[in-house]
C-alpha cells in the first residue's frame, strides 16, 4: 500500500518536476517570480483536449502541440510582461503576469466553456508488475516523457551555445551582456522553453487527472512555485527534485490525512521549508 502510494507520488511528482523545471528556467532568466505559469499549464491541458478531440488519440502529437502552443504563449508573455519593463520597477512585470493569467483563464472560458472537460484514458487500466510493485502504463508513460525531456534539456543547457547562454544569463545578466550574449533574445528563448515545458506538463496532468477546467491553473501554478522554491528557485535540477518530493509527500500525506488535504500537505511543506531553509533545499550560499 505504501509502495503503491509512493509510486503514485513519483508519477505525480514527475509532472510537478516538469512544470517546476519550466518555472525555474523562467525565474532564472527573468529574475522574478511569475504568476501566469499555472495558466500556461492549463493552456497545455486544453491543447491536449482539443488535440484528442479533433485529431484523434495521438499522444505524441498532443505533447508536441502542447509544447508548441504554450511555448508560443511564452513568447507573448515575454513581449507583454517583461520586454518593455526591464528598466521599470520589478513589481510592474509581476502584476502584469497576474493580469496575463486572468486573461488566459477567461479567454479559455470564453472559447471552451466554463464546464470541466473529460480527457479520454488512452491507457485503459493496464499495468505491469515489477517485483510485486504495480506500475500503471500511464505512470510508465509519464516517467518516460519526463525523463526524456530532462535529458534533452540537460544536454541543451550544457552543450549548446543557446543553452549555455541561458545558463549564464540566469547567473549574471551584466556579465552575460559583457561577453557578448544577446540577453534580450536569450530571455525570450528561456521564457518560451519554460512555458513549453509547462505546456507538456499540462498535457500529462490532463491525462493523469482525466478531467480539466479553465480554472485549474491557479492551484497548479502555486504548486509549481512551491516545487521551484523548494529546490532553490532558479536551479533546474533542484526544481526537479522539489517536484518529485512534493508529489511523494502529497500522496503519502493523503494516506495519513484524507484526499481533501492534498494541497494542504504541499503548502505546509513549502511554509516549513521557507522557515527552516529559505534559500531552498539545494542551494548553498555562494560568496
Amino acid at each position, binding site marked *: 500500500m505504501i509502495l503503491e502510494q509512493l509510486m503514485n507520488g513519483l508519477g505525480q511528482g514527475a509532472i510537478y518536476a516538469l512544470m517546476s523545471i519550466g518555472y525555474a528556467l523562467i525565474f532564472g532568466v527573468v529574475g522574478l517570480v511569475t504568476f501566469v505559469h499555472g495558466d500556461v499549464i492549463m493552456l497545455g491541458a486544453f491543447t491536449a483536449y482539443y488535440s484528442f478531440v479533433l485529431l484523434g488519440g495521438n499522444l505524441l502529437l498532443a505533447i508536441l502541440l502542447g509544447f508548441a502552443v504554450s511555448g508560443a504563449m511564452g513568447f507573448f508573455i515575454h513581449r507583454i510582461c517583461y520586454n518593455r519593463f526591464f528598466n521599470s520597477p520589478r513589481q510592474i512585470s509581476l502584476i502584469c503576469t497576474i493580469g496575463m493569467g486572468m486573461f488566459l483563464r477567461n479567454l479559455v472560458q470564453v472559447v471552451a466553456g466554463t464546464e470541466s472537460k473529460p480527457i479520454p484514458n488512452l491507457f485503459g487500466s493496464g499495468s505491469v508488475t515489477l517485483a510485486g510493485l504495480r506500475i500503471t502504463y500511464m505512470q510508465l508513460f509519464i516517467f518516460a516523457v519526463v525523463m526524456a525531456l530532462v535529458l534533452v534539456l540537460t544536454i541543451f543547457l550544457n552543450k549548446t*551555445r543557446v543553452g549555455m547562454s541561458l545558463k549564464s544569463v540566469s*547567473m549574471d545578466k551584466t556579465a552575460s*551582456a*559583457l561577453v*557578448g550574449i*544577446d540577453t534580450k533574445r536569450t530571455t525570450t528563448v528561456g521564457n518560451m522553453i519554460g512555458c513549453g515545458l509547462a505546456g507538456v506538463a499540462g498535457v500529462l496532468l490532463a491525462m493523469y487527472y482525466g478531467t480539466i477546467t479553465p480554472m485549474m491553473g491557479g492551484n497548479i501554478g502555486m504548486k509549481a512555485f512551491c516545487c521551484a522554491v523548494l529546490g532553490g528557485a532558479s536551479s533546474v535540477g533542484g526544481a526537479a527534485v522539489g517536484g518529485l518530493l512534493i508529489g511523494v509527500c502529497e500522496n503519502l500525506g493523503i494516506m495519513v490525512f484524507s484526499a481533501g488535504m492534498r494541497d494542504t500537505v504541499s503548502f505546509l511543506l513549502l511554509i516549513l521549508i521557507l522557515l527552516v531553509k529559505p534559500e531552498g533545499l539545494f542551494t548553498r550560499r555562494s560568496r
Partner: protein
Amino acid sequence: MSHFLDVQDMAVRYGSVNALRGISFHVERGEIVTLIGSNGAGKTSSLMAISNLIQGTRTGRVMFEEEDNTHFSPSKIVKRGISHVPEGRHIFPKLTVEENLLMGTFGAVKYDKAKTAGLLEEIYGMFPRLRERRNQLGGTLSGGEQQMLAIGRGLMFSPKVLMLDEPSLGLAPLVVKEIFELILDIRDRGTTVLLIEQNAGLALQIADRGYVLENGNITLTDTGENLLHNDQVIKAYLGI
C-alpha cells in the same frame, strides 16, 4: 584625423543625479589610457556608457573605428571588439574557471575548436594560476584570481580594446602589482587598454595618457608622466 575610440560629449543622468556632464575623451590604437578620479566622479558610468549598459538617460556619441557605436546593443558592441571587464569582476560563480573562459568566446565570432584551444593556452600562459585552478568553480577563487579570470575572460575573443574597471579594488598590494604588470603585457601584445582606477598613482605610472574626472567633468588631461608630477593631482589623488 579621427580617433580609434572617441567618446563625444557624453552625459549620463540617473533620475535627478548627473553622473556625467558632457565629457569627451579618446583613445588611440595601442595606448593605455586611464580615467582617474575619486568615488562617484563618474568613472564607471563612462565605461557603462560606452558599453550601452546605462540604466538611466544618456546623450552623446561613441565612435569606434570611425563607426557610430552609440546605439548598438551591448552584445553588438562586444562583437565590434570592445571588451569590458566590469567592476566587481562579475565572473560566473557556478561555472568552472575553464568554462568561465570559454564563455568569453560566446559573443564574438564563432571559433573552431583549435582556435579556442589556442586562445585558452594563451590565457593560461599569461595567468598560470588559472591553469592550476581550471576545474575549480569560479565562486571559490580568491579576489585576485577572480580578477585575473575576469580579465582572461575579457581577452578570450581577442578584443581590440580592453576596458578595465577598477582592477585593483580590494586586492592586496602584491596582487595589484602583478595585475598591473599584466596590463602592460596585454598592451604589448597589441590590445589597446582603457583603464579606470581609483589608485591614481599606479594607473598613471603605466598609462600613456590620463584624464582626471571630477563630479562628472574632465578637469585635466595630459600624459601619464606629466599628471604624475602635476601639483593638483599630487594633492588630490596621490596624497603625498
